[in-house]
Every structure is written in C-alpha cells, then in structure tokens.
C-alpha cells in the first residue's frame, strides 16, 4: 500500500495529466483509495497501469443508498513487483449509471463487469457482451441494490402445512 503521502503524490501525478480525472483521495486503515471521475476512468487506470499497477485484482460494485451518486464501481489494482495495492472508486448516479468498460486494458474484467451489471445495473459502455451472468436472463431488476426487496418464501410450520406447495395430489 502507498502511505497517505504516496497516495497524494499519485493523485497529483494523475491530476497533472488531467485535472478533472481525480475528485479526491481517501486513506483509511492503510487502504489507499482514489476517487475517480467515471468519465475518465479508463484514463486513470491506464496511467496506473503505466505506473506499475498492472494487475486488476478485483472489480466490484457498491450501492451507497441513500447517498448520491448512489452506485459505486471499485477497481482494486495491484503492483505485482512492488507488492503494492491501490483502489480506484468511481461513483455513478442511479438515473444515468454509465461508465466506460476497461476490458480493452484488462480482458479479465469482462466477467466482473457483467456481474456488476447483473447485480447493480451499472452499464459498461463498450463492453463486448454485456448480459446477465448469475441471475436468469429473464430476471427483472438488480437484486443487490439496497432498495430491491429481499424476496423469499414464508416458512412452513405444522399450523400451515396443509397450504404447502409440496402437496402434489
């Protein structure tokens, strides 16, 4: 992990290239996070890749309900030589959840991006095959969003067993 100073230096380097690309930084519990502007996410990741963070460990989504912008996409980057990690966080609003794909830079991001689309409804522009990956293809809604109903069935007990869906007569 870069320390707090190293994180600021990295942010400054990226801001030198494009002043709008980095909104802010966050350093908590030895975890360095760059808050990136979603419109410039490919640019940020390309710059980090050039700096040595060549491995995309994980790509996942978050729902920050009720904060706005609600949805977040997190990119966990890793420098395999220096054994150094940095996170990039991009927040997208719910009414326009678009962000550019990073599959051109990291081909392995294809399935994680499909999963984030499946669970949170973030649309990755330019993704080669943006379909649902875990839920059935005709599933409606994005189940990992906080405002999605939990679903489920009432559990059967002896008092309501005659109403059981298991009665096949």
């Amino acid at each position, binding site marked *: 992990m870069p320390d707090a100073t190293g994180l600021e230096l990295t942010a400054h380097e990226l801001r030198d290239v494009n002043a709008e690309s980095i909104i802010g930084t966050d350093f908590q519990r030895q975890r360095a996070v760059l808050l990136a502007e979603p419109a410039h996410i490919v640019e940020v990741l390309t710059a980090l890749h050039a700096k040595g963070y060549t491995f995309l460990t994980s790509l996942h989504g978050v729902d920050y309900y009720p904060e706005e912008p609600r949805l977040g996409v997190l990119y966990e980057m890793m420098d395999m030589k220096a054994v150094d990690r940095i996170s990039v966080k991009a927040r997208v609003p719910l009414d326009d959840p678009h962000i550019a794909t990073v599959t051109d830079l990291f081909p392995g991001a294809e399935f994680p991006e499909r999963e984030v689309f499946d669970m949170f409804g973030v649309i990755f522009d330019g993704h080669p095959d943006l379909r649902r990956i*875990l*839920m*059935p293809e005709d*599933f409606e809604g994005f*189940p990992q969003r906080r405002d*999605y*109903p*939990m*679903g*489920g*069935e*009432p*559990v*059967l*007990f*002896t*008092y*309501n067993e005659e*109403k*059981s*869906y*298991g009665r*096949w007569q």
Partner: protein
Amino acid sequence: MEIKREKLDGPPSDFRARQLTSRDLLRGDLEGEDLERYVEQSIMTTTLEKAVSWSQGNSIYPMTFGLACCAIEMMTIVGARMDIARFGWEAFRASPRQADLLILSGRVSVKMAPVIRRIYDQMLEPKWAISMGACCSSMGVFNNYALVPSDKFMPIDVHVPGCPPRPEALMHGILRLRDKIQGHEPEGWRRRYDAVGTEEVLTPEDGGESIRDGAINVFPGGDTAGA
C-alpha cells in the same frame, strides 16, 4: 464314521442332516412324504408386488448429483463409516437414465431449477427424490430472491432437515424412503405418540388472537414481506 439321520419334523436340529436331505433332493432320491415335507419347509409365499417393492427398496441407484455443502455429507454416506452399501444403495450412477433416486443436496437457485426438473424428468420410473437440508426444503438461510424450494417444481418423497444434515440424518432419511418404497411407511411421531394438537402455537391466553394467528415466527398466509 456313523452318520445320524433325523426326520425333518419341527425345527431341524442337525445341520448335517439337512445337508444330506438336500443332497438327496438334488440326486432325485427324495420321494413321497419326505419330499412333500422338504418342499413345504423351503417355500415362502408372498405377492409379486411385495417381492418387487422389497427388491426395489434394496437396490436403489442414486444419481451422482451434488449441489452445495450438503453434497459433502452425501458423499460421506458412501464411505466406510456410514457405508450405504449395506442397504444396496451404493452404486451412484452418472446418468439420470440409470438412476432411481435424486438426492437434492444443497440450495437450488432459480436458474438451476429447470435443470434439475429436466434431470428428474429424464429419470425412468420408478423414481424417488430426497430433499436434503434446509436450503432446498425451505430455502434455509438463503430465504431470498435467488432460491426456490424444491417442492415447487418437483415431487419430493423425503425431506431431511439440517444445515447440513449429518450423514446419520441422511441415512435415517434413506431408511425412511426404503420403508416407503417397501410399502410400510412409518407413522409420523405425532400419530405414533398420540400427540395431535401439540403444534407450536400461542393460545389466546398467551397473547395470540386465535390458535392459528398466534403461531410463532411465521408470516400470514401468502405474505412474503420481511421474509
């Protein structure tokens, strides 16, 4: 050496005598009343249906099919400690066409349910199904949008509770299924102990409105809100 022969009246006491009688029968030397008596002692009558169900219950081929963590417990019953081979159930078949029993060992997701239904349809009659563990009976801890209880899309013969059930519990379920196949289905414990009316409900004195509405930890019929 002198060989002692006994008549076959009553319970045969001498094994050697019976052996010699059998030898006589095979040679064709056994005749008359001795032959009648021998045949009478060697034959058991039953119905064809009973004989067929007896053999069916003792030679089930389960399907090689594991869904989740319950599958680990299911594999254990084939091993030496539980040893399902004692009951003739040990031959797990890799094809549904050859299998008699589907053990649903784990959670069934909405996406997996059509696959399981198809496998079940491919199995040849007679066929049975065991729903193993909480997840595929009542969805257990995963009672949410992603899962479906197995009763909703296929008939289940035996439910084995547990999360996951120990191999002993699955063995018990298997023996109950064997009893069911062989036509002597055991009574439920409520009927056996004359315990009708001991359901887990609150009476009006305890604060429940009626005996049905006061049931603990359940939702009103059809209402899944907050499940």
